[in-house]
């Protein structure tokens, strides 16, 4: 289980916070999607959680171990695969695996066998003696995954791991995460591919401008894809909203109302508003997916 508590990271004295008081958790047996625009703070949050950079304040607990104060225990229970794995590129895969195994207390003949097993497990059998600079981006990610698996951690941080992968690679990591969930491991998946996040995640945490602005529960994710209406009313007021509350769940953004869970057809809603004297300039039926929801959400956040 990964718990992020009041996590703040500021890179320089005169810089704005890269992550500002972030709070969320990833429970065992759960895949949590982590979405946000470029520069929103996703990678900083993950790198801090991985122990690679130090938090300015707040904590990250991995299975109850503080990533700063109890780093050895926390990192033993954690696997991190970054978007661009950055290893010693002149090293051969097997040599580097064995070296990194030393940090997990595995060495000698056992280390050699374990390194070969893990490389085979992630599909790198036959490439053990190849230098990492000759690995493709997908192979480097598999290598990074293999290294994490030395301690068979119960928690994983996947930062944009689906980026740059071929369909086979995407499928591999998707299956891997599903299997990890089945094994009751905690997985935090950051990705720009929102459809992928939506399809695999149990929950989604949205970060925007350094702050966590929304945490979509399993139930809320379940509602995505259901029919809803985008209604633009020129003279929108509380009376119109009261009417809309009677036919669904409205959320307001300027003159536009997003009506989810509608209980009446669009034509009936339109005529109802017109009868009450409102000017409806648009009434569109939409299927809200995570991507649209996300943009609606950060658009709202922008307006705040």
């Amino acid at each position, binding site marked *: 289980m990964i718990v992020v508590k009041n996590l703040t990271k500021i*890179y320089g004295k005169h810089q704005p916070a890269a992550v500002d008081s972030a709070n969320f958790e990833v429970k065992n047996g759960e895949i949590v999607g982590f979405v946000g625009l470029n520069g929103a703070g996703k990678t900083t949050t993950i*790198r801090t959680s*991985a*122990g*690679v*950079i*130090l938090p300015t304040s707040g904590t990250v607990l991995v299975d109850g171990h503080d990533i700063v104060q109890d*780093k*050895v*225990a926390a*990192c*033993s229970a*954690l696997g*991190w695969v*970054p978007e661009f*794995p*950055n*290893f*010693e590129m002149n090293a051969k895969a097997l*040599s580097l695996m*064995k*070296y*990194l*195994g*030393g*940090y*997990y207390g595995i*060495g*000698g003949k056992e*280390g050699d066998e374990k390194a070969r097993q893990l490389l085979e497990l992630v599909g790198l059998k036959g490439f053990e003696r190849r230098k990492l600079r000759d690995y493709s981006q997908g192979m480097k990610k598999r290598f*990074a995954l293999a*290294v994490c698996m030395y*301690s068979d951690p119960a928690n994983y941080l996947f930062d944009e791991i689906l980026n740059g992968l071929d369909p086979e690679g995407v499928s591999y990591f998707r299956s891997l995460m599903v299997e990890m969930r089945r094994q009751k491991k905690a997985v935090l998946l950051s990705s720009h591919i929102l459809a992928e996040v939506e399809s695999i995640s149990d929950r989604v945490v949205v970060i925007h401008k350094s702050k966590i602005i929304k945490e979509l529960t399993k139930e809320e994710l379940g509602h995505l894809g259901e029919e809803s209406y985008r209604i633009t009313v020129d003279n929108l007021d509380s009376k119109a909203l009261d009417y809309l509350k009677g036919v669904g769940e409205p959320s307001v953004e300027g003159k536009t109302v997003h009506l989810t869970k509608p209980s009446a057809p669009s034509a009936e809603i339109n005529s109802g508003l017109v009868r009450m004297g409102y000017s409806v300039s648009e009434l569109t039926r939409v299927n809200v997916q995570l991507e649209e929801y996300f943009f609606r959400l950060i658009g709202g956040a922008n307006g705040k």
Partner: protein
Amino acid sequence: MTNTVAYDVRRTLTSKSLLVIVAIVILISLAVIPFIRSATSPSGIASQSAETLLEYQDSGGYHFFVYAFNGYGDGLSGAITHIRISASNGEVYTTNITTNSTGFGSYHLTLPTGVSAKKLSYSIRYPSGGLPKIGSYSFLAQAPGEVYTIASDFGAGPVSPIADKSNSTKTDALVVYEGPYGAEPSGYSVHYEFGNLSSTASLNFSEGVDLGPLSGFVTSFKVASAPNNTQSAIFWITNSTGGLVAYSAYPASTFRPVKVAVEATSIVSSFTSGILSFFIPLMAVLVSYTNYGKDRVTGTIESILTRPVTRRGLAFGRYVSVVLGLCAAIALTLAAIDLTTKIMVNSLLSGTFIFETFGSLAVEVAGFVGIMYLLAHLVKGTGALIGGGVMIFVVLDFFWSLITFAVSDLLGYASGSAGALRVSITADFFNIAHFYALVGDYQSKSYAGAFGGSTAINPASYGITPVTLVITAALWIAIPFTAFVYLATRRD
């Protein structure tokens, strides 16, 4: 962690920069040793300290004049001559004459009326240390103002052999003399002759080679090498009327370049100070860059940081493994040089030399690694890191002498003066690239100048003792390392 340290040691030992530099040092050794083997070695005079003690009497008492000098005839400050004079009334008079910054010292003794000095015993202690030189002199009846040479390290008389400054294998002559009543000598000329004389009794003082006039209390003369078929070398001083006033006699071999047996340590020490002290710190800079600095600046170190290891543990492991790897490279280089000298001159390096060379170079390596690791946490780019590291190396290794010259000048010390020497030696304590030289100063009891030549020194009087060397080494290792660990554990 043992595996990781072993891996990093192996990574250090197999890094290209290290292999190239070790190969260069070994190849230079192979190329240079045969030349040094056939070279002529200095006679040994160059590393010696000496003193001339003169005396004259007048109505006011006894006047003593000393000049202490190094092997090249340059004045030595701080030489102490202890004089003990027994007088005819049974009293004993003692004093210490300490030479000033130009090597001169003097003393005046007044005895009660009717009392005369009978015997003088002396002991001379030089700044370079060692056992004091002792001797005695019985006072003879002498005319007022007449100058006598009481003590001279190389023999009786005012002429001493010194090493030629431009060729230390050649021997010149230094004359220390004063005119009547201690006046600056005027009208005196110096002559010499190589021959087969067993004494000066049959020497014709009107002949010989004229070296020229004395130009002051201290005058040096270039002397030709003594022919192989001669046994003695006689020098004498004549006054303005041609009368003999003093002479000195030496075996002719004193003024003949001598080829001494060459042994491994002298061969290697004659070039290692230049080659090793240049290449080993450079190797430390380059290897530190490739094995930690680049990883840190490019972010490769992050693939380690996310492993079950503390930041302090990672910093310590990387530091120790690289220093161990570099020390292994130094040991390998010394072993290769030792093997080369064994093959070429059938002589092995002395244990003391190996210990001091390895130890001082290991300290330099540890210091440079610490500085580079620290720098890796202060700069953001690989260019800045390698550029900064090489710049530090260049300043400390090449331009340090210019800095110390400038400081000496600011303090008003002339080049080559005792004050400038003190500034140079003191500055070496603040330069990790000169730690090896500092240990060499202690071991050889001489200070090697930036542009060749050396000056005999008493290391202790310049603060070079085993204790200060150990403290300096500890500080050079501890300060950069501690600062590096602080940044590695407290900052991203």
